[in-house]
């Protein structure tokens, strides 16, 4: 089939995309590589006429930085927590949505709402919901309000938890971030999975019904395997997105990336890149390449696992 006519024709079809990609994607990537290997590169200093040497110092600087391990840990932890939780929850919600008739469209629209809303506004709302107002880290404590979430937990007899304020624990911070990120990730996943479910032939379910299959088994043995391509897609994009986590943390904790008293505690890889990009473009580029490497490896692992696990 590969005749020369098709060859040049294909390239003509691809030409607009390739030209634009070369200019606006490939060239920046090359520039990034150059900056990453230009030691201590800073575009403003470069403008000021500073001369740079080439080498791997930027990478050393990134890796040696004590906050870097912290960024890496936060990024990994959030990925490992939020991707499975959001995927499973989205799956459950999609299956539930798919098995009701009354109000289905209405609920579907509601679950899509977070997708069309400005994340900054929602971050502010979440922060307010978890916020404890009071000097929580002092011996002499005066607490004004424990926040809506703690009020709700109080109904079940749970003592107020210091989620995001001064003196809060790392675990509590991560819990809040997990809730928020999951909340943010749900609509897209529900949309994809529900779309997948609706394209599954209904006869499989009828067949299972005829065979007296319990609901749980229908879910695990039929629904999940049939959805496995969508699930793989959702998980892989989830991981890629997870490694680029940044704005959701800004949403809750502000650009200091941590609770009062311990700024930077929740900083992530992209957070580090943003911190550096203002005046340390060399380091930022090196960090971006490291991040790309990690994402690449994880995606490869994901792909090979999903090749084994997804069906047909």
């Amino acid at each position, binding site marked *: 089939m590969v005749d020369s006519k098709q060859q040049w024709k294909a390239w003509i079809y691809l030409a607009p995309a390739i030209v634009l990609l070369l200019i606006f994607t490939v060239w920046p990537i090359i520039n990034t590589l150059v900056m990453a290997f230009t030691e201590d590169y800073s575009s403003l200093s470069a403008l000021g006429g500073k001369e740079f040497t080439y080498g791997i110092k930027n990478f050393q600087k990134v890796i040696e930085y004590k906050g870097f391990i912290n960024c890496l840990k936060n990024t990994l932890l959030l990925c490992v927590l939020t991707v499975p939780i959001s995927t499973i929850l989205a799956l459950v919600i999609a299956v539930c949505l798919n098995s009701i008739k009354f109000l289905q469209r209405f609920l579907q629209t509601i679950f899509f709402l977070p997708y069309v809303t400005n994340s900054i506004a929602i971050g502010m709302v979440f922060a307010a919901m978890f916020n404890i107002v*009071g*000097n929580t880290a002092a011996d002499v404590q005066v607490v004004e309000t424990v926040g809506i979430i703690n009020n709700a937990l109080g109904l079940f007899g749970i003592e107020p938890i210091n989620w995001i304020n001064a003196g809060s624990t790392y675990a509590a911070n991560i819990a809040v971030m997990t809730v928020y990120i999951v909340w943010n990730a749900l609509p897209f996943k529900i949309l994809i999975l529900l779309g997948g479910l609706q394209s599954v032939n209904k006869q499989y379910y009828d067949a299972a019904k005829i065979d007296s299959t319990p609901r749980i088994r229908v879910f695990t043995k039929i629904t999940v395997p049939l959805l496995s391509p969508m699930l793989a897609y959702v998980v892989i994009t989830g991981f890629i997105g997870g490694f680029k986590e940044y704005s959701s943390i800004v949403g809750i904790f502000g650009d200091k990336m941590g609770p009062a008293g311990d700024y930077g505690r929740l900083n992530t890889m992209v957070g580090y890149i943003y911190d550096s990009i203002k005046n340390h473009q060399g380091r930022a580029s090196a960090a971006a390449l490291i991040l790309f490497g990690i994402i*690449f490896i994880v995606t490869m692992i994901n792909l090979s696992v999903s090749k084994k696990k997804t069906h047909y």
Partner: protein
Amino acid sequence: MKKILTAVCLILVIVLNCFALASCGDSNSTETKDSGSAFVPDEGLTYDGSEVEITFYHTMGANLRTVLDKYVAKFNEMYPNIKIVHSQEGGYDDVRDKISTELTVGNQPNIAYCYPDHVALYNLAGSVVTLDSFINSKAEVTKADGSKEVLGFTEAQIADFIDAYYNEGKEFGDGKMYTLPLSKSTEVLYYNKTFFDANNLSVPTTWDELETLCAQILTIDPNCIPLGYDSEANWFITMAEQLKSDYTSAEAGNHFLFDNETNRNFVKRFSEWHQKGYVTTQEIYGAYTSGLFVAQTGTKSYMSIGSSAGATHQRPAATDDGSYPFEVGIATIPQADASNKKVISQGPSLCIFNNASQQEVVASWLFVKYLTSCVEFQAEFGMVSGYVPVLESVAQNPVYAEFINTANGGDNIAALSAKVCLEQKDAYYTSPAFNGSSEARDQVGALLQFCMVEYKNASDKDAMIKKAFEDAVAECEYMS
């Protein structure tokens, strides 16, 4: 998998090729220019009346833009060919980020709102115009009506600037003038005058007095936090200034000096205060300390240290009959040494960017000169913004004097705040500005906050504080 691996190899090959090309290009294009040297305008340069367009980035809200427009019109009566295009670019950080990107392609504005550390950043690229030769220039400029003015400042004009504000423009370690102050604010102590009067409390002038006072207030209202402090960073820097201990210097390679005994001691002292429930900060408390101060129910504070420009937020909401639940008093913040007061100076200055067109630079200077030295503008801008004018003579401006005269702790609280600021004009200080000075500021704020929060759980409190200082210095070194 194989597919993507091939792809990556492909990219790498392309990239390596380009890399070689790019590096060659870079090394060739290196100019023989000192790194980070400032731009100095030509001697004897003057505005020749040609048509120029000046862009000006700021953060002014709509009401301030109205004021600005009014004075741009007046400026244009003198210089009709200088067209001023100004735009609001979000907050101070947005202005900085936008300009530092624009500088890389030479697309920067002519004039911008700035903080000293922004200028230090721009200076890496050598893009900020030093103002000394303009200030001292005796060249003459012809106005539209044929009259002439001297391009530089007169002696009287320089003397009219409040010293500390004026000197802030020279804090860059090389003694050169880079910025001129536009409008300023500081920190003041807001207190609940009604409560103080009722309980016969006196306004604290020193930190020792404040400590005693806090204990006293807590006996009156056990469910309160006597003092709310807006900004840990300001607190730290001001304390270092008041105690004459080191904070930072503009000297290259020796910027971060704040890790010293005196500073560790006051950090420890304030951490203890926090633990005793004397004080909280906006970040630690989880809500605006002004909200705590004006609260009518629940937890309250009776003192609040915050920006003089935010006076209206420190006033409780008026009741239905238009009166206020309590009267607000404003005073200078407590001092280490009441006879040698020190209060921080903040608020925007103006800087001018280098440009290929010398006429644009000199025209920019004319506009900056106009804004900073025009008494009417300074007065009106101060009244609308809540910021303090930078000229001493504004106090004699009849409109502004009237404004100050009506000062009270209720409706005219902004005037009261301005009045207090004017009264303490000799107490202002500024900190050295260099690339990394904003990092130092962030770090000391975070450090004070960290210690206040961690104090409770730390087993060896001195070691904890010592480590926090060391970490903060290390972070500053890394980030600058």
